[in-house]
């Protein structure tokens, strides 16, 4: 029987994994709760990093590596980061070959400056890079759907993994249209995106990335890592239903942060960090905004018309649509908002989890970004990670001979992945507590208080999904408590300095319903 690889999630990570396998004649089932056009990957704006050295600044892969390691405060796996940076230039080229219209001038790709990077390294398509990359990937994926190598299962929701003797033998899926559960055998790659739904209405991401996949995996014995590192992007604005991102590209192209002192603009980032102050890594900028504790503005009034017309016209239009202000003439009030999850499913260099045959890639996996992700590195990480997971499976396909008929395997996952009305109310409580506890600045007292409040939430007869979400919330909080130092996006006011004894990733697992931190 031919091995089918099951991929959960059809954003950039999932589609890349699927195509990599299909190109090697391996059959893939690609599950997602919505079509790829709805995935968060479409929302990405500013660009994708690769040391192409197009701007005559003597950039190279080693400098990309150094910036990424430094940005992540040296806790990411160096070998993995090396692979990511080495793989980047060919990813830009592959995307070009499937038709991505990278911004070019005089026949060569233009790269823009981005936060935490010394060189202009970010390739882009205006301020809609994610949308353009995703469209090209969707079209290319379709080619393999047509040949039958990729089978798409949209409107299909994750219901659990099937594990036998610590080996993943398949996946359980709920069909939202038919209302039925099915088991599918084969190795599994999870590409389910970030945990936005643990902070609903407070992130720049999508509502379809609920965090439940990560939560249910955690409950099934999958180890997670670095949950305390949540990226607050410094320039977001509240729109009615969420926080809307104003891309780092705005500062990359010359936008400046300031507060007002009697109508006088004070460029606090430049005052403290010099010329490149506005483009410090996101953790540094957000922390600074939290510390000055004043209304902060993004000043884009100095940008010239060429930049507005040719590089940021979409961003300008979006701000006009939602804020009814033209950033070319007015200051825009901004505040930090949750934007990215550096932590997630713990994976090794092959993107395999602690369960054999279960892989994870993209934002759901804790892989390349350590304590803080650099802008432009996560589109890259999603594509590179999807490819790497797929290649690992290709290399060891015969390892999966142990997988056979699932019907013989009983499981207790049936029918309990939906929150009851009562649980929905409790979920609001849970996410409110988590949002309050996991702010930019944290301390032991408030973290313990949050944990205590979470522990008071009743779980008698709870559904698998709700139980899992509560455990994940506790795990996030416990990770933050256990790191008694400040590093990257984790700022402890009671431990304001970093401490070398914590210079390593956090690992968290659930053993006999108890949260264990390593």
């Amino acid at each position, binding site marked *: 029987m031919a091995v089918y690889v099951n991929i959960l999630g059809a954003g950039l990570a999932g589609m890349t994994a699927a195509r990599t396998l299909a190109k090697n004649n391996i059959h893939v089932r690609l599950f997602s709760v919505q079509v790829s056009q*709805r995935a968060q990957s479409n929302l990405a704006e500013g660009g994708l990093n690769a040391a192409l050295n197009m701007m005559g600044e003597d950039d190279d892969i080693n400098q990309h590596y150094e910036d990424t390691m430094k940005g992540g405060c040296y806790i990411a796996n160096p070998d993995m980061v090396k692979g990511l940076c080495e793989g980047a230039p060919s990813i830009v080229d592959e995307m070009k070959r499937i038709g991505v*219209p990278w911004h070019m001038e005089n026949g060569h790709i233009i790269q823009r400056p981005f936060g935490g990077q010394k060189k202009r390294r970010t390739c882009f398509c205006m301020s809609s890079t994610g949308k353009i990359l995703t469209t090209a990937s969707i*079209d290319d994926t379709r*080619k393999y759907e047509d040949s039958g190598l990729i089978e798409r299962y949209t409107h299909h929701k994750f219901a659990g993994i099937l594990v036998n003797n610590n080996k993943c033998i398949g996946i359980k899926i709920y069909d939202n249209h038919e209302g039925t559960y099915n088991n599918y055998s084969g190795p599994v790659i999870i590409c389910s995106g970030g945990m936005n739904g643990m902070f609903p209405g407070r992130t720049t991401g999508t509502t379809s990335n609920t965090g439940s996949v990560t939560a249910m995996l955690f409950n099934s014995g999958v180890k997670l890592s670095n949950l305390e590192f949540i990226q607050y992007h410094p320039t977001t604005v509240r729109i009615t239903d969420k926080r809307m991102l104003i891309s780092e590209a705005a500062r990359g192209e010359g936008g400046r942060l300031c507060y007002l002192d009697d109508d006088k603009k004070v460029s606090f980032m430049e005052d403290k960090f010099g010329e490149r102050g506005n483009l410090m890594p996101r953790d540094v900028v957000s922390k600074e905004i939290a510390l000055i504790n004043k209304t902060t503005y993004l000043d884009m009034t100095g940008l010239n018309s060429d930049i507005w017309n040719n590089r940021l016209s979409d961003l300008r239009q979006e701000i006009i649509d939602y804020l009814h202000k033209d950033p070319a003439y007015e200051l825009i009030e901004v505040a930090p908002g949750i934007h990215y999850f550096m932590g997630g499913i713990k994976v090794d260099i092959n993107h395999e989890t602690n369960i054999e045959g279960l892989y994870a890639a993209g934002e759901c996996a804790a892989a390349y970004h350590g304590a803080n992700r650099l802008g432009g590195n996560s589109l890259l990480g999603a594509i590179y990670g999807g490819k790497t997971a797929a290649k690992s499976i290709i290399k060891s396909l015969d390892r999966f001979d142990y997988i056979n008929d699932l019907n013989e395997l009983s499981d207790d996952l049936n029918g309990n992945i939906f929150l009851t009305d009562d649980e929905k109310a409790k979920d609001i409580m849970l996410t409110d507590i988590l949002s309050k506890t996991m702010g930019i600045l944290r301390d032991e007292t408030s973290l313990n208080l949050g944990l205590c409040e979470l522990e008071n939430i009743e779980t008698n007869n709870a559904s698998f999904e709700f139980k899992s979400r509560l455990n994940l919330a506790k795990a996030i909080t416990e990770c933050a408590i256990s790191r008694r130092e400040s590093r990257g996006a984790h700022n402890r006011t009671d431990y304001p300095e970093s401490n070398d004894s914590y210079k390593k990733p956090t690992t968290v697992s659930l053993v006999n319903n108890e949260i264990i931190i390593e």
Partner: protein
Amino acid sequence: MKKILHIKRQLNSNSESYYENFVYESDNENATVATALLTTPVIWEHSCLQKKCGACAMVINGKPALACNTRLADMDCEIINIEPLRKFPVIQDLRVDRQALMDKLKELKVWLESDSINGNENISYEASRCLECGLCLEVCPNYYMDGKFGGMAAMTPLARIIDKSSKDQHKELKKNYKKGVYNSCGKSLACRDICPAKIDIDKLLVKSNAAAIWNRWNKE
């Protein structure tokens, strides 16, 4: 502000539809139909909540629109009638099955067979922006599900392929463009005004017609 959402509901694809009212009250002048729907138990598709993903397409006071792009304050009436898209089968409440859009793109072979040529950056950029929301099909007098015509939701992604494809694919593209777009488009262009991404359909049509109908393809 107080609004009454008059929502067409349906338990599943086979059951009878019915209307149910929900009251939404808020001081938030920027609240959208999506904001209000999030407070109800009604089933509907959403994801980005900022008109970037096309999930929340529905019919609002008779007009096809994205819920997250429709401000409540912009509607004079107190009662807001909300219905699912009419051209696709209802799964539950406001959720419809838009698989036909995806199937059409497969039928018309919307992909590059070999490496992309440089093409025209602006055209590919514009054509890549389509959300596959289906609003254009809702207002198109010539589109019906399972018909030959793919409407603007097929024309737009095809324009990207036409722009980027090399010679080996031109014959097939010409056939598919004629069949799926050119032959059945009645040029009512109702799609132009409804498109939430404001895609420049004239620009794409001119370029695609030039190539796929008049054989003025981009050179490699």
